[in-house]
């Protein structure tokens, strides 16, 4: 095969395997302008993606240091290392930062921003200025939250349950709440931009069923941004009003209903978990076919599954409240619906596996991450079904089983997808190749470290260790020490990429336009791409994922 599909003037003449000389082509988006102003006032979606990449990396470090505190404290059962108060602040900051300032924006705001216009053959997102604005909104929210941390911390948990957060906690709840509210607007603006872009900016010939799955999952994610985020904004506004001005509706002292807050919170936060996982599924759906050199199995099913997930996810929020005095009928319904969510998830998992079947596999770093993702997501997802089983939930709700469940999906799933995507598109983004051996070594470290850290937590949870515990009974110490030990391996695995990726910016081999022989419009342009992405109007292939090995598609289309 040869990927000479590029119509773009200059690159078309070049063999895709010879590196594009970054330095003597200062017209790519990285070098076109170099002032600070050209970065902070840029409207280029690719540069904004990099602004986001830098900010979320910083937040990941903040969240990771907080996680370090948590794991450090739990080495001993009696809380001798830090006070209960410090511990509570550590896990609250960890949760708030990891969820709202790292994981939710991670893939959409970086890869989504960078790739959606490239993948659909557009020059930019529909509203470039709005895109920049959403980064500033993000940073404003971030400042408030960091202020809360610097001033003395918050101790409500990332869930901010009333009335603890409104009337009882005497920590810096308000700035944290305001920060999270503001960040919601940044999500909304990003989602809005994606929806409009995907609807209106597709290149001629880019029909809906020629879109890469990555775009489909981002479309689904954006719909959740638009439909769910306003509800948490409202819930947080009510919380802020109640805490700051005693204007609120949750206060039980007046017959208000604190459980109402939980309903509003989870109405957003359950869909939010699909905000966190769908983009990762998109990344995996790009990586797997590229490294199997085979057409994605069941393309249409995978695309529909994304929309299916985004729809069903709105009807399961009550599974977080089975033991909170919810009516039996509601619990039954929410439990049953949670099982239904497994169906579209299963579609994805089985289709990735089928794609690998009879492919021509290369086990480079992105593929290692993708395979790790599939394994850990499946474990995390199925333990979600355990949690959704009413009788089991009654025992393991609010224990470390839940902690293990969501870290399997969010860290084992989304973070691995993020790292896989980072390595996959690194050559495209920076024009440089990273070190492959180091890539594989750190993938291995992360996989092993992750399992050593979080698998023991399933056992701890079933043994009955409650979460958010600064101190715990001594019989749980062994497994906790194991978990803390694992987290140091994990930390090393995170540290390596930060070093060798940065190193590659200066010393990496120049990347060709399409180092992986991958399909998709983003690989048809130079690495790094020019400011307006394509020299001409890109040619859209007849079928998505037109890899050399073709799997039959749903009986209708034959190869």
């Amino acid at each position, binding site marked *: 095969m040869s990927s000479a599909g590029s119509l773009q003037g200059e690159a078309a003449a070049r063999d895709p395997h010879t590196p594009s000389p970054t330095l003597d082509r200062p017209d790519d988006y990285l070098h076109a302008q170099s002032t600070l102003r050209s970065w902070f006032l840029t409207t280029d979606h690719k540069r904004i993606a990099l602004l986001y990449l830098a900010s979320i990396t910083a937040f990941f470090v903040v969240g990771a240091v907080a996680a370090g505190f948590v794991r450090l404290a739990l080495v001993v059962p009696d809380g001798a290392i830090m006070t209960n108060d410090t511990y509570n602040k550590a896990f609250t900051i960890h949760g708030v930062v990891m969820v709202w300032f790292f994981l939710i924006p991670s893939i959409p705001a970086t890869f989504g921003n960078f790739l959606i216009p490239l993948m659909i053959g557009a020059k930019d997102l529909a509203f470039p200025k709005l895109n920049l604005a959403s980064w500033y909104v993000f940073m404003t929210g971030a400042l408030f939250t960091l202020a809360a941390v610097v001033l003395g911390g918050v101790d409500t948990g990332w869930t901010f349950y009333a009335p603890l957060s409104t009337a009882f906690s005497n920590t810096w709840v308000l700035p944290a709440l305001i920060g999270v509210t503001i960040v919601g607007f940044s999500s909304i603006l990003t989602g809005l931009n994606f929806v409009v872009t995907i609807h209106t900016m597709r290149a001629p010939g880019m029909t809906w069923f020629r879109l890469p799955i990555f775009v489909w999952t981002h479309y689904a994610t954006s719909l959740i941004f638009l439909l769910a985020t306003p509800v948490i904004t409202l819930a947080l506004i009510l919380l802020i009003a109640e805490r700051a001005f005693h204007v609120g509706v949750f206060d039980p002292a007046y017959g208000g209903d604190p459980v109402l807050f939980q309903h509003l919170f989870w109405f957003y936060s359950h869909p939010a978990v699909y905000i966190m996982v769908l983009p990762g599924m998109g990344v995996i759906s790009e990586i797997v076919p590229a490294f199997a050199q085979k057409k994605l199995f069941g393309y249409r099913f995978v695309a529909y599954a994304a929309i299916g997930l985004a729809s069903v996810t709105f009807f399961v929020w009550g599974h977080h409240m089975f033991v909170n005095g919810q009516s*039996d009928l509601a619990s039954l319904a929410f*439990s049953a619906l949670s*099982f239904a969510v497994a169906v579209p998830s299963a579609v994805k998992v*089985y289709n990735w596996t089928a794609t*690998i079947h009879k492919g021509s596999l290369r086990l480079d770093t992105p593929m290692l991450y993708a395979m790790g993702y*599939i*394994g850990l997501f499946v474990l995390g997802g199925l333990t979600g079904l355990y949690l959704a089983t009413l*009788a*089991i939930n009654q025992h393991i709700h609010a224990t470390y089983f839940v902690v293990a469940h969501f870290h399997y999906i969010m860290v084992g799933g989304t973070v691995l997808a993020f790292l896989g995507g980072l390595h996959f598109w690194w050559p495209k983004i920076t024009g440089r190749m990273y070190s492959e051996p180091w890539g594989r070594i750190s993938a291995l470290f992360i996989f092993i470290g992750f399992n050593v850290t979080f698998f023991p937590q399933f056992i701890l949870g079933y043994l009955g260790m409650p979460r958010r515990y600064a101190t715990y009974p001594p019989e749980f110490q062994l497994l906790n020490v194991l978990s803390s030990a694992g987290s140091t391996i994990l930390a090393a695995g995170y540290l390596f990429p930060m070093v060798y990726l940065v190193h590659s910016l200066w010393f990496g081999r120049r990347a060709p336009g399409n180092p992986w022989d991958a399909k998709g419009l983003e690989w048809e342009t130079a690495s790094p791409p020019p400011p307006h992405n394509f020299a001409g109007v890109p040619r859209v292939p007849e079928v998505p994922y037109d890899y050399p090995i073709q799997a039959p598609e*749903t009986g209708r289309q034959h190869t």
Partner: protein
Amino acid sequence: MKAQSALALWPPAASATAVETDHIILGFTVLTLLLTVPVFLAITYFALRYRQGEVADRTTDGRRSVLIEISWMLIPYVLTLFFFGWGAKLFIDSRHPPPDAMVVEAVGRQWMWKFQHPTGQSEINDLHLPIDQPVRIRITSQDVIHALYLPALRLQIAALPDRTTEIWFKADRTGTYRLYCSEYCGTDHSVMDGNLTLMTQAAYQDWLTHGGAQQSNVAAGRAIYESYGCAGCHDGAVAGVKAPALAGLYGRAVHLADGRTITADADYIRAKILNPNANRLAGGGKQVMPSFAGVIPADDLDRLVGYLKSYHRVADGETR
């Protein structure tokens, strides 16, 4: 038993419901393995078999994939639904107590549990109950949301500030097990725990009449001391409040503002709690302590006084 070994991989089960819950999760795990092990094995096998450069048959047979898609969506789903049904049944059962259940009232507050037996006795943080007898716990909260978690019975239920929730069970194994607060409720969430002691009916009756229920328990008193905020001021945690230290107070001579000197006995301490403005202390600053009359129930007051009696000043400052 409470003294679990460090390597225990399975929690003790003290009721038929707990055992059945274990069966559900074990069964579900078997199904999970059936659904996932093939995926994992397949991925590993394909990754090795179809490595680039390996010679392998890569032709695909134009099979209709709709059928495959539908089957791998629906078969696992239908299989898991069995566990939905089983779990739901057990859950619903645990919401509907039999009419002959004995009723225990539970109250959560930052950061202690209080349990009241049907015969009137109450206890703090610990709970003693008979086996082979349905027990219904009616639970509420005085401040934030808490949750009562009894792992040996595989049960938990939230304590909500504005309403009463309930749970019931019938234990069938004696022993001492852990009891926790499992809904995050602020600073000392993790120490809002205690022991659940399950005993034979006879032992329970014995305990009610002359056992622990009668004794004012020092640990319980300490929990009350902290929960009602005494510790905040008197142990110097709240900045700017100059409340006298209470360690070693009991039995000591106290100088009052009106010149009298009296011995701090139980009556004095009790009166001071209920009416802080009487018996002003000599050299005392501004009186800021609120009256606890009508705030603290009589039994808790007894425990508190009992605790202060035994609250000695130890040479190295360690007072617990």
